[in-house]
């Protein structure tokens, strides 16, 4: 009986436990509550993936109201993959959070931190599973508002300005999405995404729908930090608490990309998005610019967190590049990279969290000779870095292999060159850290630090392990991604 309710429980469980977390007075209790819930959420996610794999797309009518009158939860293979990413990252970073938050956030705030974390988790999952355009807006706002709070809890005053900047840009994005949904509703009379797509065929060739498309696309692009709308991201990731950066880098922007996939393929269809609106060409151009410009900027950063933030903007470019090809191989490559990059970037930010715990800084100059003091942490960073560059036997290699393959199949050989060039830039910025930590001697006044505790190293190494596993045997991820891409393309061609 329970198994039929999994889609609802997936979101309601973290959502309803957030208020409970607020009432728990002791920080340890709040942490334990959040941790338990995040593992339950992961268990539900795994069961849902199995269900989708066995029976195909799941639909759950909330309140038992038939679509389009009620709100529908709808999970297909692409959604299942996203749930898995979000739930896994949530379950992995919370054990890490226990120690890290204790140091980075004032004690009286830690209950609120876990409350907001659960709300953000619920919001992100809600965005993925919902089949309703307005419900998506509501859950987007739950995740966004809780993100602003989580970022503002960072320990410097710049966390406040970063959160404010994100709040302003995020709200503009959300309002753009709201305008777009309003225009779509105006001409179709419905809010259910599948229903919109069916009724859109008659009215697609109107100026109103074109504008609606432009507004939702721009709104979502702000949320996923597509170049050049990424301006909120570097500050937000740099000044947020370490756990928050790790969680967001792996989930928040990725969920944005998923919404973009839903829009282009499920709601508007390939014919409208890629042929009539030429979104493929535009996205390809922006993605290429992101890969080059953001990687270049990353090289010149001395704050390693900021360096990784710019690297994220570049990596989002890779994912969008795959999607912009609008082919089964391209979309699949994009989704494989989405999955792999979530694991890698989370691991990298977690290892920076370990460094921050001991050093109280993530500036490059403070990390001189750190590899001798914190060998496991630095090894995790290097392993993640190798994957970011895309060396063989890492998951990054797999993503780039599929991406280059998809680009070449469609005859875009300059893109393949760009991918290699951008990887070279990644090599440079990762090398800067490696050189400082391994080959420089620590300065005279540098504190003698210990290795990070196991509770923080294990989550990072779990992700690194997964990364190497995928690097050797990518069949599972690639299978799911190709199946998901197949479904999306099928929905897109009509």
């Amino acid at each position, binding site marked *: 009986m329970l198994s039929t*309710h999994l889609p*609802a429980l997936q979101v*309601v469980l973290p*959502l*309803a436990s*957030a*208020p*409970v977390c*607020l*009432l728990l007075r002791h920080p340890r209790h709040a942490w334990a509550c959040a941790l338990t819930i995040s593992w339950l959420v992961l268990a539900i996610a795994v069961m849902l993936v199995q269900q989708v794999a066995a029976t195909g797309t799941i639909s*759950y*009518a*909330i*309140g*038992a*109201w038939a679509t*389009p*009158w*009620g*709100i529908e939860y709808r999970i297909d293979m692409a959604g299942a993959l996203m749930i898995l990413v979000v739930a896994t990252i949530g379950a992995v970073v919370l054990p890490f959070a226990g120690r890290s938050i204790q140091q980075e956030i004032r004690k*009286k*705030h830690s209950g*609120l*931190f876990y*409350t*907001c974390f659960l*709300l953000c988790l*619920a919001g992100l999952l*809600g965005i993925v599973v919902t089949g309703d355009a*307005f*419900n998506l807006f*509501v*859950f987007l*706002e*739950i995740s966004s*508002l*809780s993100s*602003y*709070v989580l970022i*503002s*809890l960072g320990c410097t005053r710049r966390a406040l300005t970063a959160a404010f900047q994100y709040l302003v840009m995020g709200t503009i994005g959300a309002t753009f999405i709201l*305008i777009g949904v309003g*225009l779509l*509703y*105006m*001409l*179709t*009379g*419905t*809010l259910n995404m599948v229903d919109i797509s069916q*009724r859109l065929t008659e*009215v697609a060739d109107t*100026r*109103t*729908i*074109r*504008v*609606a498309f*432009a*507004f939702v696309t721009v709104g979502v692009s702000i949320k996923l930090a597509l170049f050049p709308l990424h301006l909120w991201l570097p500050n937000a990731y740099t000044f947020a608490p370490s756990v928050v950066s790790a969680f967001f880098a792996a989930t928040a922007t990725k969920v944005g990309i998923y919404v973009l996939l839903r829009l282009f393929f499920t709601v508007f269809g390939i014919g409208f998005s890629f042929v009539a609106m030429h979104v493929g060409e535009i996205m390809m151009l922006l993605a290429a610019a992101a890969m080059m410009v953001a990687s270049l900027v990353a090289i010149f950063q001395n704050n390693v967190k900021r360096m990784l933030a710019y690297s994220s903007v570049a990596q989002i470019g890779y994912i969008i590049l795959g999607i912009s090809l609008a082919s089964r191989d391209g979309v699949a490559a994009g989704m494989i990279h989405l999955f792999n990059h979530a694991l890698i970037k989370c691991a990298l930010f977690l290892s920076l969290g370990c460094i921050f715990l001991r050093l109280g800084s993530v500036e490059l100059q403070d990390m001189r000779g750190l590899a001798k003091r914190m060998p496991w942490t630095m090894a995790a960073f290097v392993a993640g870095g190798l994957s970011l560059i895309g060396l063989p036997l890492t998951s990054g290699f797999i993503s780039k292999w599929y991406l280059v393959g998809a680009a070449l199949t469609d005859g875009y050989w300059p893109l393949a060159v760009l991918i290699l060039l951008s990887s070279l830039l990644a090599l440079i910025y990762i090398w800067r850290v490696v050189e400082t930590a391994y080959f420089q001697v620590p300065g005279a006044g540098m504190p003698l630090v210990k290795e990070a505790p196991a509770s923080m190293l294990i989550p990072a190494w779990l992700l690194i392990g997964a990364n190497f596993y995928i690097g050797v045997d990518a069949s599972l991820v690639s299978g799911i991604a190709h199946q998901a891409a197949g479904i999306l393309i099928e929905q897109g061609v009509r």
Partner: protein
Amino acid sequence: MENLINDVLLGLLMITGFAIVRMKSLLGVTMLTSIYSLLSASLFVVLDAVDVALTEAAIGAGIATVLMVATVALTTDEEKVPRHTPLLPLLVVMATGAALIYGTLDMPHHGDPLAPAHRYVADSYLHDSPVEIGVPNVVTSVLASYRGYDTLGEVTVIFTAAAGVLALLGYRTRGRNIEAAGIRKQVVLRVIAKLFFPLILLFALYVQFHGDYGPGGGFQAGVIFATGFILYALAFGLGTAQRLIPSQLLRILAAAGVLIYAAVGLESMLLGGKFLEYRVLADDPIAGQHLGILLIELGVGITVASVMLIIYYGFVSRRH
């Protein structure tokens, strides 16, 4: 006549909007924003959206204004003249506006009864909700039942705001009574506040429980309830208000409202229905719908009222 009022209100909105752009005193801007909100509430009445009008008046012109005034008091009233000419923003805004106007060209006309928006889902709400739910106010039916899940999300959003304000501003458990010193000397204001306080609370209860039949519901009621207490706090000082409703109680209530809502959903699951399927809550489906709507509106009202007060306490108890 209706069209004339509509046009006048739109004209006033434009004038207010432009004045907000130009005015440098932030307190003045805050007042104009409140007027802007009140004007749009009036426009909503003309456009037949009475529930929305009530909410906009209470939230936009009421609570939001209080928060803005508090922020101006805590920061500064002066806006510095920008150093650079805002040419790029102007271009972006022009382009966005032009795109939207381009989009209007294929829209159905304003008020057209044959527009697709009115002919499909909304039409069946109007026809079927009296039979399926049995509540005259269709807005309540859609809000609480057909799209009840959105409303759960909305309660969660406002709960998130409370958590955020608590994290950012915190609150002192013992407020001092200095804030309203100005008003406290004004006997007339205090007498009126005392007179109005019970009336506002009574009206809030009316709005809460009459939402099935007329405009109103948990949101509006919650906000009005909170307004009553804000008035009380203004007249008699924050400390007195906090003795009446302590901050810790507010925290519990804010959480309780969300939990009541979620519990109704889970209970309907346990009774064999889907999440938030109210008809399984009682033997008769219509009675089940009524019970479900009553309970979730109660949850909404409790959370909204306590969150508004948490936010208010947060801003007002903040002093350097």
